[in-house]
């Protein structure tokens, strides 16, 4: 019988695999009695970060509420790939109304439950970044401001992927999309634009705001469970790489999400009552090139005439995040190690 040493840091993330954990510490997904909020057979692309994120988030919410979840969904990839009638992947009560109104519809669901004296059923609203930071923003800010009892989850794949990869206010600078083509003197999306929605959410002083990525699903589940401990408006912003829109290999989704966090481009933290309470420190800091070069949407920055100036600007964004959130701790490993 051959034996093999377990590489504790084999994925380069300090993440501990389920098999090394005690049963009760394992992920919700690893439990045999978990729910299937989104069942198999849906039409998401191979390697879809959103399908993965939604599955983990909703099953965690189901566990936290003993199966008492109603979901409201904005128009978008998640809605389209999960439910062309008469088929549906949803094993929970699920309502799709429009692109821009999911937060308000969720407010209505929560209000109806309250009026009917139903206290155990909780409401989760979900949307992509377009339905959150752009077209749904007015309704979302209203829902936050009223502190309605809704957990809103944004699955951020940084663009309008369902309609064919157009730019949203969550698209990063320099990224090529169908409406910010990689042409001209400054190819890709413009610098100095976009919304930082987790910080905007915090400015509403709602009880709980957190970010997560699909690279650390244990962390995502924990944050959903934490969110369900609060009443009032809660916001969870999950980075979900999109192989189609980002031009990345479908088996690189987790890796790319991890690099977004490890480069500092996507800070992972949680905040309560408008104050950051904890951050996920960068374990093995990487330069932004490591993240960018795996995605064809940034291909115009590399090649025979690399745009080192543009890459430097993106690096400075990552550096600013690292400073703002204190993402590099003494425990962080150097890039070379």
């Amino acid at each position: 019988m051959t034996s093999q040493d377990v590489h504790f840091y084999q994925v380069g993330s300090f993440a501990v695999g389920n098999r090394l954990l005690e049963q009760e510490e394992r992920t919700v997904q690893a439990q045999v009695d978990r729910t299937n909020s989104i069942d198999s057979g849906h039409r998401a692309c191979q390697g879809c970060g959103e399908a993965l994120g939604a599955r983990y988030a909703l099953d965690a919410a189901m566990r936290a509420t003993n199966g008492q979840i109603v979901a409201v969904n904005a128009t978008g990839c998640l809605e389209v790939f999960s439910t062309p009638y008469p088929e549906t992947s949803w094993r929970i009560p699920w309502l799709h109304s429009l692109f821009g109104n999911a937060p308000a519809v969720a407010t209505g669901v929560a209000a109806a439950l309250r009026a009917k004296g139903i206290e155990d059923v909780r409401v989760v609203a979900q949307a992509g970044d377009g339905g959150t930071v752009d077209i749904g923003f007015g309704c979302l800010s209203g829902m936050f401001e009223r502190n309605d009892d809704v957990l809103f989850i944004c699955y951020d794949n940084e663009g309008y992927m369902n309609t064919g990869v157009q730019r949203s206010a969550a698209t990063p600078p320099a990224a090529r999309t169908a409406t910010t083509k990689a042409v001209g003197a400054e190819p890709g999306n413009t610098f100095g634009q976009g919304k930082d929605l987790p910080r905007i959410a915090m400015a509403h002083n709602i009880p709980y705001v957190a970010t997560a990525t699909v690279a650390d699903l244990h962390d995502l589940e924990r944050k959903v469970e934490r969110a369900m401990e609060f009443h009032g408006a809660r916001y969870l912003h999950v980075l979900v790489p999109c192989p189609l829109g980002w031009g990345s290999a479908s088996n690189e989704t987790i890796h790319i999400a991890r690099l977004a966090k490890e480069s500092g481009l996507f800070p992972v933290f949680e905040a309560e009552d408008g104050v950051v309470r904890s951050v996920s420190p960068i374990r093995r800091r990487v330069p932004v090139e490591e993240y960018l070069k795996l995605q064809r949407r940034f291909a115009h920055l590399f090649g025979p005439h690399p745009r080192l100036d543009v890459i430097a600007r993106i690096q400075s964004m990552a550096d600013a995040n690292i400073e703002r959130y204190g993402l590099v701790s003494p425990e962080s490993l150097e890039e070379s190690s």
Partner: protein
Amino acid sequence: MLRQIEGSRAIAETVALCRPEVVCAYPISPQTHIIEAVGELVKAGTLTPCEFINVESEFAAMSVAIGASATGARAYTATSSQGLLFMMEAVYNAAGLGLPIVMTLANRAIGAPINIWNDHSDAMAVRDSGWIQLFAESNQEAADLHVQAFRLAEELSIPVMVCVDGFILTHAVEGVDLLEQSFVDAFLPPYEPRQVLDTNAPVSIGAMVGPEAFEEVRYLAHLRQLDALERIPEIAQEFFEASGRDSGGLVRPYRTDDAEVIVVAMGSVLGTLKDAVDLRRDLGERVGVLGVTSFRPFPSEAIRDALKHARQVVVIEKAFSIGAGGVLSSDIAIAMHREETLLRTVVAGLGGRAITRRSLEKVLDDASDNELAPLTFLDLDHDAVDRERARMQATRRSGPSAENLLRDRGTVSQKADA
């Protein structure tokens, strides 16, 4: 009990008697007094259990109502004009989802130029949305229609819009006999949804439907509206038998039996029209009025029947399709399909211009003399229009027409300039 009460207050108190569980609203004139009063009743604990939600836009108001209704709650909101247009996407969505939301529409013109006064442009803009649209003639009918609206909406799973002339009715104080709670409780059974978000029986609501079934889905919505054509008069009759009040129904003929000229209209102008017709009847002229209470579903048969002996039909409309003509008139023409009847459209009361009895009598005179043009704009200042047309021809940068027209008219600001 008969009370001297503002129309908005009468509507609000009647809505409260219907025990809505979720009320969501965004203020817009002239709807404001309605939602203020409902909010007060909720805050005071008179209407309970009820969640009153101050939302950030009309789009959110209808969206909250959608979420509440899909969760099995009786949901109500109110709006006007720009607000209706801002929520239009959700208005269509509520009908498509078959959610029996009741909404008061305090009818108001649509800008630009911005104008807060009454006409029917807002209601006409959503006539194809799948909502039932009922027009109130008086504040008594406006109040009563809301009880019937909830009953109708929930029976048929169709949202209902009660259209009430902004300011003319909403802000008018007159005697209204408000219903008793026991009456409304007996008339309006608890809401039993056809589809509901229930963790014990999960369903997916609002998913995509392709070409293979979309037409059938739409046709079913049409059939449900045709069902409403049956139920609207039945519910009105039941209401009449229980309350003794003749409110609602499809159409309201007035002295039409032997009428050669019949004037058709919707809403509060019917009162003035009836006065004008009474005067003409005293002079021996055979004129009558047909009020259309149900605009959607459109009661083609009832209208055809009421107009079948008329030599001339004059439709007075507080809205029109720019570049085409009358909206109600088009529906009436299709309903009548009679070549031998002269059909005339009079656009009147746009942006709150008063429709006086004197002007209506002129319309009746012209109709009797066969001098009414196919499309007439009541009390239109043709000289003012001609002057502005000339200005536009003479100067490229002629400026905003609305401002020019008011300057010509001699407004205070112009006098200050001079």
